[in-house]
């Protein structure tokens, strides 16, 4: 067992995990973050995509089935459950997916939305071809991608018009370390300001 501490959707979780545990199973089975799903076992489908801070603290899209939980130690993770702002204001990408009917069964949707947020963070004004290339690692069996492309295009426009980046708020440093092992549940209600929010 390895001791890890990950801040997920603004709440810090300290857990003992088996070194082989994949981040996606840690999120789902230990932390109850079942909004993030598993669609394959070869890192092809992208259903499990979340944002994770890199060593510089920048949130980037990762396939959480291709990351070990121990590799996420000390990192910030944002899942689909933490993407909406306070009072459940939808992120512009979520809103555009709804407006454009960019989902049917919705199984690919959490990963697709997170991948789209990642894409728009890197490229706020992508062409349709760049959107299609950018989402190549995320499979959808229902929509034929047409409305997903439209939704991402709309979200990009809305973000630009609002002068915002697609990225949720910059990761905050971990709260003070607590030595006592916990049950994997959040130790404290995190104040509003550290809940990842879109930059106004």
């Amino acid at each position, binding site marked *: 067992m390895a001791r890890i501490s990950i801040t997920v959707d603004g709440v810090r979780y300290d857990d003992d995990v*088996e070194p082989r*545990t994949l981040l996606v*199973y840690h999120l*789902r*089975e230990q932390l109850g*973050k*079942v*909004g*993030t*799903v*598993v*669609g*394959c*076992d*070869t890192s*092809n*489908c992208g*259903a499990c995509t979340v944002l994770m801070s890199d060593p510089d603290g920048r949130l980037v899209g990762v396939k959480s089935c291709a990351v070990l939980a121990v590799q996420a130690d000390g990192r910030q993770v944002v*899942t*689909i*459950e933490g*993407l*909406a702002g306070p009072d*459940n204001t*939808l992120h512009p990408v*979520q809103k555009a*997916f*709804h*407006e454009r*009917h960019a*989902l*049917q*069964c*919705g*199984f*690919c*949707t*959490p990963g697709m*939305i997170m991948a789209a947020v990642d894409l728009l963070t890197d490229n706020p004004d992508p062409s*349709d071809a760049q*959107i*299609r*290339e950018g*989402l*190549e*690692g*995320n*499979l*959808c*069996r*229902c*929509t*034929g*991608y*047409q*409305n*997903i*492309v439209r939704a991402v295009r709309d979200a990009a426009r809305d973000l630009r018009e609002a002068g915002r980046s697609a990225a949720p708020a910059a990761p905050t440093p971990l709260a003070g370390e607590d030595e006592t092992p916990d049950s994997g549940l959040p130790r404290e209600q995190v104040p509003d300001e550290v809940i990842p929010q879109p930059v106004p």
Partner: protein
Amino acid sequence: MTVTAEVGAPRRRKEDARLITGRTMWTENITLPGMLHLAILRSPMAHARITRIDCAPALGQPGVVAAFSGRDVADVQGSLPCAWLVTEDIVHPDHPPLAVDEVRHVGEAVAVVAARSRAAALDALAAVEVDYEPLPVVLDLEQALAEGADLVHADKGTNRSYDWVFDSGAAGTGGSVDEALASAEVVIRRRYRQQRLIPAFMEPRSVVVDPTGDQYSIWSATQIPHILRFLVSVVTGTPEQKVRVVAPDVGGGFGGKLQVTPEELICFVAARRLGKPVKYTESRADSLVSAHHGRDMIQDLELAARRDGTVLGLKVHLTANMGAYLGLVTPGIPLLGAFMYNGIYKFPAYRFECTGVFTNTVITDAYRGAGRPEATYAIERLMDELAVELNLDPIEVRRRNWIRAEEFPFTTVAGLTYDSGDYAAATDRALALLGYDELRREQAQRREAGDPVQLGIGVSTYTEMCGLAPSRVLGSLRYGAGGWESAMVRVLPTGKVEVVTGTSPHGQGHETAWSQIVADELGVPFDDVEVLHGDTRSSYKGLDTYGSRSLAVGGIALYQACQKVVEKAKPIAARLLECDPADLEFTGGRFQVRGHPDGGKTIADCSLAVFTSHDLPDGVEPTLDADAVYDPVNFSFPHGSHLCAVEVDTQTGRVDVRSYVAVDDVGKAVNPLIVEGQVHGGVVQGIAQALFEEAVYDGDGNLLSGTFVDYTLPSAADLPDLVTDRTESPAPGHPLGAKGVGEAGTIAATPAVVNAVVDALRHRGVSDIQMPCTPERVWQALQSASRSDQQGGGS
């Protein structure tokens, strides 16, 4: 009649709120106290006798609570059901959920481990010991039928499951096809292969069974909770009222979750044995190797025609791969196509023969379109071949044969009565949207210039039968269930409405569309309607979602239930308004005295009066709730014209879909947004069959395309922008005028794309390419065409 006019509006979906925020209830999310996790050991052999199997070593592994094999449960596990035994003498082998003595395809379940965690169960699988004695593997359909062939089921003495024939001469729906062939000026003979496909829904299948409490509760990622409840009860001998089935949010199906699976029964047996809740969620590898596949048939076709392009008849022989057993509706899938090989054309003679064959592969069964894409592919490819033979434009040859708008209702050579349609209108619209004439000019220029990238234009003018189905027709085809659908409308005291539907959506947006219908019919706000589905405790009656049937059949049941609510409310409104019920009309969501457009009472007013029941007229039952069950009198027949332009690189064989136009006529659209989404998804699955996907077994029966690396679903980057439009021929007999739309795109798209690829290379001597038209296959086709050209030139 109504003022809200929800029906026809592009309402954003209610379902989305939970799906875009990660608050969805997938089966795999369910965790129950004391729940055990199952892992399933699968056969690595395509055909073998199990000479020894020992689960005991797994029991010593950490966290393992139980382990058992097929032998341990042989007397209690039952046999998986087939509900469509298409002939009286069909060969129908037993299909134990866990193999007992013999395995007949790679991936067949042989043993199960129950443990405290998923990881512990998976770890312990390696400890189960199995000795296999290999048996001969049967894979090739034609060899399987040959004299002295090795057998998938030795005790059956044959690999032939059934022969099924429809003949228009014998049925009295047309003439003799042999006469048509004998008298034809042109006969086109072709053999096409419908490659094996995998439905590949994105949510892997998952099952939870809880044996505690009064009922067995089964949560399953299924399209068919009602059928599953009935069949679990029959197969396991559990009284039906003791079984509850829930299909929570289900992540796609496409026919792939229209099945009673080994895993569902294994979980049921394990939960019953262990007295604890159990869960099994398949990995993608498990899913690809063991969930049923689709298509996989050889089509031998003969089309008879006159030189003026008039088609005289069509003869079809199918050799259809059943896989190793018969799944829920395996034998019937090719027959769903039997009535559609004539497409939109009115030729007078038709014969269809189908032979079902066992092989050592996983079963085939429903996959989006189920029989109808194969039929449409055949006739639409043949129409192109006929056009080439006669030097006619492919649109023109279709025009000369299709049913004209004024000829509906039209009874076809296959005996179906097409309800309505306007093929010319849809085709003209599609031609204009694509810019057909311009593309033909560009094509001519590129040919002229010897451009290495050639342009091809493909046409597919399709119809399909959907809205399954009149129960009597299903009965005459020996299908084991009816085709009705049910709806209940409950008006709550505050005037909010609960709809309980027998349909079981898994991406189709029924919660939204059904709310739109109820909003219009009862005059309540869209947001005041809640649609309950997929739980046999609330929705105890239904026939579920497949075959583009839910709106076409279930929509009528819902409409009728709403009418009953209005009828029930009428005397109550009359009492509230102190008038004679006969003087009331229900308009714009209000009961009003005829001629007095002010005032009036709403359904909500009546529901409160019913709740208190202080002052109801004598003899009026204090409820507004109503049920309706509707059995359709006919199928419904959407149609459309899909056109596709592809660019084919003759040096690399690479195909790019440059533009795609789909003009569909699905009758009236309740929600055009959802209709368009269904067309997009359907078209892309059709394109995928044409260009990308194939399930491939090697010579030993190992599935080579066992991951998403090898079974290549298209990504966004592989696909073009789709242009969609609609024409509208309302469905007669449907109060909303709606036809089905779930499968149309898939049925139409495959031949449009392959016709385009072949069209691009026709001048180079290519007349067919085996699907999927991968760069390698296209390149090979070009090479062999140029070889035969050279040989031809020398002779």
